């Protein structure tokens, strides 16, 4: 994560409109969203939202309190870098003529990317890692023409079992 950036894990009840409530709160109070991802957890009643945000410590405290007070929110806490794993997935479509193909594939291999589609003029690469790794890979591809790029945004989990939240009801 960059300086000033934090990753929050938000667990919410799967009610209708819950995503817009969270996103709306960020926008109307002027909090930044660098990335936001959401998906259902092992408990289908609960959705996990991972938000990467930036700001000073007062803003971070307000984000935690304002989000925490929304009726649908079960829990919000920071996923601290030293105690968590973050991952992001990127799909990158690069223009690659048959003679360029080998070089691009070699680069992808270094980053443990996989080629998931190929055509006469392009390659599609899937790369997973933390955001820094994906940024680095994109930088390496700068000599090539990137036709389309899809990044999922950061998902994360705390390491170990210390911070696992159990909802038994």
């Amino acid at each position, binding site marked *: 994560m960059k300086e000033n950036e934090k990753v929050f894990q938000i667990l919410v009840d799967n009610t209708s409109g819950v995503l817009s409530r969270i996103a*709306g709160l960020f926008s*109307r109070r002027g909090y930044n969203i660098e990335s936001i991802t959401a998906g259902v957890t092992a408990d289908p009643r609960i959705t996990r939202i991972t938000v990467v945000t930036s700001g000073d410590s*007062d803003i971070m405290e307000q984000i935690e309190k304002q989000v925490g007070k929304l009726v649908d929110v079960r829990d919000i806490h920071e996923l601290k870098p030293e105690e968590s794993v973050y991952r992001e997935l990127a799909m990158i479509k690069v223009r690659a003529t048959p003679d360029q193909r080998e070089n691009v594939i070699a680069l992808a291999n270094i980053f443990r990317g996989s080629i998931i589609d190929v055509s006469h003029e392009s390659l599609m690469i899937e790369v997973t890692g933390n955001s820094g790794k994906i940024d680095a890979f994109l930088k390496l591809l700068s000599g090539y023409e990137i036709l389309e790029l899809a990044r999922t945004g950061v998902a994360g989990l705390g390491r170990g079992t210390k911070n696992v939240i159990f909802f038994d009801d």
Partner: protein
Amino acid sequence: MNGADAIVRSLQKEGVEYVFGYPGVAICPFYNSILGSGIRTVLVRQEQNAAHEAGGYARISGKVGVAVVTSGPGATNLITGIATAFADSIPLVCITGQVDSTLMGSDVFQEADISGACESFVKYSYIVRDAADIPRIMKEAFHIASTGRKGPVLIDVPQDIQMQPLSRFEYPEDVSLRTYKPTVEGHAVQIRKVMQELQKASRPLVCAGGGVHLSGAAPEVRWFVERYHIPVVTTMMGLGTLPTEHPLFYGMVGNNGSPCGNRAMMESDMVLMVGARVADRSIRQPELVMGDKVLVHIDVDPAEIGKNAGPTIPLVGDIGSIFREFNRKELELDFSEWTGVLNGYRTEVPAPEASEGGRVDPGAFIRTLSLAMEPDAVYVADVGQNQLWSCKNAVMREGRFLTSGGMGTMGYAVPAALGARLADPGRQVVAVCGDGGFQMTMMELATLQQYQIAVKIVVLRNNTLGLVRQYQHFSYKDRFSVVDLGAYPDLERLASAYDIPYLHLTDAGETERILKAFLAEPGTALLEVRIDPDETV
């Protein structure tokens, strides 16, 4: 039984006495079911007033106010009232009719996404998709509205859901909201810390906000400050925590507050901020209350603590509960020396002026009015100069002071007074408005008369939007723009059109006599007071 019957049954279970509202096709199933239910309905003349009336009712009854309107324009008209309640943390349940669920999202006649529109100023909202959910949703809505930091909850009910048959009605005993558990009791460690700091302090001060009234905690706070002789100031919403002439009360703080109150804030070494947001109108420079002071911030909403000022001791919980804990401790403390210093800062209240051909001084008039009112009366101030004159000059005894403090919604006073009077029909209720705000909601004169609800309405008439004019006077060097209330209605004829007794005051020498006659009117009465447009507050 259908969905609409279930809503009415739920309202009965919640002990709802009054529904303020306005029907339309999309809410007709509800208004059909409510007939014969024993719940009384009040037909407002514009939906915004339904929320204000429910709000006035909630503030005085301590219960949840209920407003029920139709879809589309009915719902959107309600918005200002909902936002007003949200800004002052007033518990409301607002029910809106909606087009059939099968048509939602297709922009049919009188469809508006009201839950989307109100998202940022409701405490929570529901769109009902199945009539079977109604008992649970109603139970949750009343619970959410009336607990923690109170506020409005919106329930949008499509017409077909209101008509959907329901096989059985079982109203839940309890609410099981896994995600919503507001803190009531203050943390024992924090309470002990406050007591320790209080023992070290030499100039402590209690700053009481609207949260004191919302918690019903004024008696507990009063007991606490009287025991140790701790001086009290309030925000606008906290007025009435102590009677105005109580020896420990030093006035309102903020840019419209009293010099004495602000000086007390500056010179104190420990401030207990109680149910106050530390918002811009009260505490313009939060760093000043943080610098050299111990700041204790007591609020039921943890998000308020640290939002505008970082406290030394945060204390989350219900104010009544926390002060009951404070009051259990036995401390040997007495701050009479400090209150003695503050007493020297008190300024004399100006006596009513009768100079310049009987010119009515607005401040003096307000003071006389408040003293002529019954001691436990409800004083409802509108917004603008009238509100600021009221804050500064109304003498509160055992009554209540209501106003739209957070949102500053013009036209609030008349409908809120109507709701307040219904909440406590034995209590005198006086609404004080300017001529701008009055014209925003004067259609409610009809509602007052239809239901024979007695509210005394004072209109301070200066034919101008006084507070904006005053602002343009100071900030734009008398370039007055769009503040002239021309084609002024003849209020005497207006009152007579509604069959309301009318009095007017133009000569300050007549103040007491006119007020006596005005307040003696058995029903609603209108008093027009001529004041000079150049008056500033």
